[in-house]
């Protein structure tokens, strides 16, 4: 097992290295950020001075080496737009995204999986058909539209919940969270629901498909023959057997939502990292884009590693085949 982990870590380093080159070249190809950032009326000497100050007069390979050298010392550079170290900027906005994402993904899994199992367990019941029908909506209606409808309904017409923004924050374990006050939760509810809808639909469908397949297997027949109650069968056998694909999707969804909750964050003015990255793309804030994409790559590599380890726990065959 430890050999496997070391091997995956080495792979991760290679992936990160390749990613940094791709990101750097890609971001470079968009154009010179100084053409967007320097005021249009800046005279020629001021332009030259500023371009040189930010090291953008160097050839690409030199800029990349300078960047690598700084990263080796733990320095991802400073944001062109905000003048503060990029890592500070990203870390300061991470809790906001983290609580939104966790609320959405965990909520989706906690509601979606039981509903999906029910729909798979009783495929012909009216309730199951309703669940499946509604889940199609979750898939097909675009997030930005649902977001605006949610705001319109619950904030503008009914006035129950705030239209956007994050609630007051409390410092817990040195990090600022908004989920420990009722007002904070009231701010969180709408964006979390908006973000969760698509994932909820996906969880329902995954759980249903898995359950229908498992219900037909010999395992279930023998369990029933052994006289186990239906509840025990669902909880101990069905849930365990359908867990592998659900954990995979759960992990990847968590990652992609953490990284790219852009639409929801923009519509609900949620001060998270998704909004940060979209803003840095439009202003060509190169240090933020590069650092962010590299951190996202790191996030996915880590999540994939954790998923692989979770497989081994959920399905002993995986661990055995790797040990061999």
């Amino acid at each position, binding site marked *: 097992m430890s050999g496997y982990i070391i091997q995956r870590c080495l792979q991760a380093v290679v992936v990160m290295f390749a990613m940094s080159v791709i990101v750097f070249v890609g971001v470079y190809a968009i154009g010179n950020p100084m053409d967007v950032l320097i005021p249009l*009326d800046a005279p020629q000497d001021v332009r030259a001075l500023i371009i040189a100050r930010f090291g953008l007069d160097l050839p690409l390979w030199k800029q990349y080496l300078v960047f690598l050298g700084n990263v080796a010392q733990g320095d991802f550079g400073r944001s062109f737009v905000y003048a*503060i170290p990029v890592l500070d900027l990203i870390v300061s906005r991470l809790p906001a995204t983290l609580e939104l994402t966790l609320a959405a993904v965990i909520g989706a899994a906690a509601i979606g999986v039981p509903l999906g199992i029910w729909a798979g367990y009783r495929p012909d019941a009216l309730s199951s058909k309703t669940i499946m029908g509604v889940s199609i909506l979750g898939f097909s209606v675009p997030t930005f539209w649902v977001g605006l409808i949610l705001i319109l309904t619950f904030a*503008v017409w009914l006035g129950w919940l705030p239209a956007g*923004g994050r609630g007051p924050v409390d410092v817990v374990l040195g990090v600022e969270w908004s989920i420990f006050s009722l007002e904070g939760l009231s701010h969180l509810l709408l964006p979390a629901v908006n973000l969760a809808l698509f994932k909820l639909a996906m969880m329902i469908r995954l759980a249903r498909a898995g359950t229908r397949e498992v219900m037909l297997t010999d395992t279930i027949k023998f369990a029933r023959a052994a006289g186990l109650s239906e509840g025990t069968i669902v909880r101990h056998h069905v849930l365990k057997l359908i867990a592998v694909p659900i954990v995979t999707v759960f992990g990847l969804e968590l990652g992609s939502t953490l990284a790219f909750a852009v639409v929801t964050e923009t519509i609900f003015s949620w*001060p998270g990292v998704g909004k940060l990255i979209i803003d840095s793309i439009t202003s060509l804030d190169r240090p933020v884009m590069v650092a962010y994409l590299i951190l996202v790559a790191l996030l996915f590599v880590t999540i994939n590693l954790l998923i692989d380890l979770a497989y081994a726990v959920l399905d002993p065959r995986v661990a055995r085949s790797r040990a061999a």
Partner: protein
Amino acid sequence: MKFAKLLQVSAVALGLGVAAAGASAQTLTVGVRGGPESMDPHYSALGVHADAMKHVFDTLVWSGDDLQIEPGLAESWKPLDDTTWEFKLRKGVKFHDGSNFTAEDVKFSIERIPVVTGPTTLLIYVRRVKEVVIIDPHTVHLKTDGPAATLPNDFVRLFIVSHKAAADFSTKETAAGGFNSGKAAIGTGPYKFVSWEPKGDLVLERFDGYWRGKGPWAKVVRKEMPNDSSRLAALKAGQVDLINYVSSADWQALKRDPKTDTFLADSVYVMNLQLDQRESTPKVYDLDGKPLAKNPLRDPKVREALDLAIDRPTMVEVVLEGLGTPNNQLMPKGFFGWSAKVPARSPDPRRGKALLAEAGYPNGFMMDLYCTSDRLPGDGAICQGLGQMFAQIGVKTNVNAISRSVYFPAQAKKEYSIFMNGWGTLTGEASYTLGSMAHSPNAELKLGAFNRIEYSNPKVDELLQAAGRELDAPKRKALYEQAMDLIMADRAYISIVTLQTVWASDKGKLKMTPRTDEDTLAFFITPGK
């Protein structure tokens, strides 16, 4: 407090509904499209940055509602000779920490800018200053690198920080930290800094010792909400009292809404079409998509034909839904150097077609038109409109309305032939606009830096250089007007519309005079009743 919160939440749970965070009469909550980039006023020259900074800091020279220059921290100014300006400073002005504002702070601020400024650089506003000489605590002499007639105009963006509070926070590494934490964010402005984080809320508290008097709001919160629909929803939900940059579609609806007030102002932004004047240009083709022998945009007849194709009133009424005014020159009406002599432009596609035939293109030609789509309200839509109008005179136009992050780098590399973006005359006078766009590119004279079509008219160059040396205002104005007449007659720059900006608030909630520079300054906004 806790009980009240509990009540509110249970009311929500019961479905009774409570207006969210109702703002008290003493607090002004504003939903703004863009916020500051730092709490350091010297970091960025961006308009939204200055808008936020003007709450905490003062500028040496004040820019009025219509960009006319007025006394600010400086009470008066006059040129002493060709390279010296004397500024008399206001007495009795206090910083938020109680210390006095003196000439030392002015010198410190001017010398600090080149050290800490970011890529959206403020250097452009102080680059003419060679030396700051303190004569007495309330008099400074500024030595410039040559005659600098517009120095007071440049200083509308010269924010004054406290030389004591900011002393330890004036390097590239320490500036943002010191100001964002509030330690150095000590100004002479109407509001004291409370808290801010990038993209988050800017919270401000009234400064009772402000030299203009006490502000009308005890507390001001500026919430950054970049999405137009979200900002409007926040207003309708009662979360904010006032929003800026209402989109033209929403404005149409709000005008009919009895619960909302709207405020409308001309902006400083004019949409200009720019026609490449180089011998050969990359994005103009014959009708089969093959390169042309010469650049048709160099032919005055072709340029006039394109101008005649543009129906400005339709552009305003239909494309911008009324949010703009037709314009025929590079600056909005009434700015210093705006010329009444430039003839009004009216559309005449038939004559345009005839002119094209005279120029040797009876069947027209083909071109790629590039514009920004995410920089100013309506920029992408105007671009589409132009494409259709040019098609009417037989010029097949491929419209490319693209993100500014792609547009400006390519435009700087001169990859486009015909392109449109807005230009804001932020200082309210012509040297800023004409000096950048209409003078032929000349690095030595630092002129023509944004002339990306290589437009060159020796007569215009001569007039602009003369105006730059002329310290007498009426004479200078006449020179700029003459230059403007010539530039617009050449039609290498074709101005289309002046954009307008809209604010919205709850009916009767507040009174404000909309500002041309689009700032939303809490000090000048008063409660409705």
